[in-house]
């Protein structure tokens, strides 16, 4: 049990996917302009990663490892994740319009997202068992959501602040992201 808690804390804070591993920076900058978008995106990433983590882990166990095809893992995962997300989006649009309006509109952003891909690859590389994989697939996106929502809160305030012309918008956002990353480095050594 302790291992799982450590794994979760490590994934959320110490190895934060956004601020420490620098994966998934496009949505980090793109959807952090408003708190609504940031929360929607965070939920969508949790949802997709849970699915993608499970599917890719099974794929690895059933096809790639027995056949000795680990060397095409990256390309297989891309196809699997992309097809999965697209399918979920199409299905959701028709069958769960309410959920689609909240989460679904963020799905295209995740289709080929490196954070999703990254976590799936980490799951394999660390040789997690099924339960560990589940914890990691939920904890990493939780860390993603935490960083994204914190960042959106900061950006909403920065927008109304006095920012020198050349630094406005994305520039100041990157500077802010850098400071956030520095502060997250403080979690190193926790585990």
């Amino acid at each position, binding site marked *: 049990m302790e291992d799982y808690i450590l794994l979760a804390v490590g994934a959320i804070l110490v190895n934060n996917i956004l601020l420490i591993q620098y994966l998934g920076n*496009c949505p980090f900058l*793109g*959807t952090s302009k408003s708190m609504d*978008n940031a929360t929607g995106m965070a939920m969508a990433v949790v949802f997709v990663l849970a699915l993608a983590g499970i599917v890719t882990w099974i794929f690895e166990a059933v096809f790639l490892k027995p056949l*000795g095809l680990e060397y*095409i893992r990256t390309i297989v995962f891309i196809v699997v994740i992309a*097809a999965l997300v697209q399918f979920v989006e*199409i299905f959701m649009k028709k069958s769960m319009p309410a959920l689609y309006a909240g989460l679904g509109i963020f799905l295209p952003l995740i289709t080929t997202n490196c954070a999703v891909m990254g976590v799936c690859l980490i799951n394999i590389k660390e040789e997690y068992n099924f339960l560990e994989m589940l914890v990691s697939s939920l904890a990493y996106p939780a860390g993603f959501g935490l960083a994204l929502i914190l960042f959106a809160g900061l950006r909403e305030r920065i927008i*109304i602040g006095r920012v020198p012309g050349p630094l406005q918008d994305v520039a100041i956002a990157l500077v802010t992201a850098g400071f956030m990353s520095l502060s997250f480095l403080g979690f190193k050594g926790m585990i």
Partner: protein
Amino acid sequence: MIEALLLMMGLGAVAGILLGIASKVFYVWEDPRIALVANCLAGANCGGCGYTGCGACAAAIVEGRADVGACLVAGAAGAAKVAAVLGLEAGAAEPLTSQNTCTGGFRASEKFSYMGVNDCRAAYLLYAGAKDCDVGCLGFGSCVKACLFDALEIGPDGYPVVDAEKCVGCGACEKACPKGIMQVRKPSDRILHMNLVTDRLAPCRQTCPAEINIPRYINHIKRGEYDKAWLTVMERNPMPLSTGRVCPHPCEDACRRALADDPVSINQLKRFCSDWVMNQGTSLKIPVAPDTGYKVAIVGGGPSGLSAAFYLRRLGHKVKIFEWLPKLGGMIYYGIPEYRLPKEILYTDINRILGLGGIEVKTGVKFGVDFDLESLVGGGFDAVLMTIGAMNHASARIPDEDKVKGVIPATVFLRKQGLGDPYPVGKKVGVIGGGNVAMDCLRSSVRLGAEKVYCLYRREVKDMPANKVEIEACHHEGIEFVTLCTPTRFITDDEGNLTGIEYLKNELGEPDASGRQKPVAIEGSETVIPIDNFILAIGQTTNSAFADEEGTAVSRLETSRGAIVNDTDTHQTAIPYVFTSGDCAGPPGLLVAAVGAGRRAARGIHKYLMGEDMAFPPDRLRVDSRRMKGHIPGTIFDSIEGIKRKGRIEQPELEAGSYERQHTYAEVDLTVTEEDALKEANRCMRCCLTCYNQDA
């Protein structure tokens, strides 16, 4: 190696088939343009545009929420492709533009002195900003900072000014403004907008029955932008040349300047800018929304029908007007004489409306005789607007008024004149009534050769509903007013020809429902005036006899004293697809009211056809321009300070007593000179809700 290839092929095939089936099974309709636009974008789903992926960005572009250049990755080339896709649709003809709706600026008083961050949204967090006016601009320019196209700046007066050339309608300023002052709208959105209590409206603009943005067009005139002034008027009134000549301008009664000086001569300024555009001869482009595929029939080509046709067409519907007389214009063609509104001028207005394209006209066909509701529905019309006017006359309740030779209703008298076959009048003519129609009959009789013309009215001259200028003109033309009288009997010769009229004198009694004293006839005060002709001009009613016929679709219409009953907001009648506006929908009124009702009816029909909510928002502003009631609280002042009395410009007119004035139909009131117009425009204090120029 083989296994890898097989696995990838199998995976690709399975994924492809699965997605293909899913896209058919879970198909959801969306605008086909979205897919076309999405193809022009980068396709990276990077989210750099601020939308959640390329699909969402494409949808935003098609809906007009995002600029065509929203995709930063696709760059200028992508933007050009997107514009080409949208350009295929006529929708691109409807430009989105940003407008600042507050003109308070430095003039607005402050509740407290704000010394925080120079940003509207930051200032707004503190008691909604320092300005007294709840809906006023804070002036820190958050919108200016939000604009990527350099199209906005805080002007010299302390509120943002939009550069229409640079504005692309991206909507960034609207999102940045905490008070909703910046509004990015398509022309059709503006057509559908009705005055709200929460809008920033000057008293004149609240009062105008057509809701014209008066301070804005006067400000354009002030700056010499006569074409823009005209376009501003056209947003609310497609017949500015005609209204500029005959409107009794209730707006001027609400003019704030009147508290310390004469009111601004608003109507003359409208006439000036529309005459200027007419004389320039250039055709200014009026945007029309893409076709909706709906067809609307308009029964009656009067001002209300023409106004509705204009706005329905601009909203993208096809329109066909059916008119029973040979010419369009209804009461203002056949009712208003040439010397007040020359037919050529009226037709310039009408031709401009028809010039939009997509409006068909069929004259010489009468509703209930040549066609009816069944044939219109069968003919593929999706909605019908009845603007049949009020062409019947009301009875004066004098015995034998329809038998005596020489007695004629005003509607017939004026219509014959409009048809070019004027009714031959004798030397002495009497007209009963005190409205504008009576004035038209009086002044026309003078021009038709009558030597002595009497106006009979049951109250006093000051009680007459006619325009003051008209009454004055009657005095100038030598017309005699016989007030406080009740005609009782026609005096005829042996052949039944009219030779005189007998009347009782009146005295004024108790005030009636309208607040005016009720006239009471004095017994035994019989007086006779010798006259050859007598014109009845005491009111008009609608001929809605067709609604009484059993078994027809139109019999489902409800009528009340001839008028067709409708919902006064949506203009819808008891038959859902039938709407009505203008004189036939209520007591006959002003041209400008008919024009305003035409636009409201167009809104009702548009909402009905598009399946949208037809009701007005609950904060709809309802002003009674006759009784001057219902204005936004706090906007009608008792006094104003600092205004220097300048006096308004005179109405130039043909010299009283001249040959042209007495014997021809030459236009009597003339258009003001450019110099006078500028002088008058500069008297406008550019009022908003509570702000005004105290040094004007």
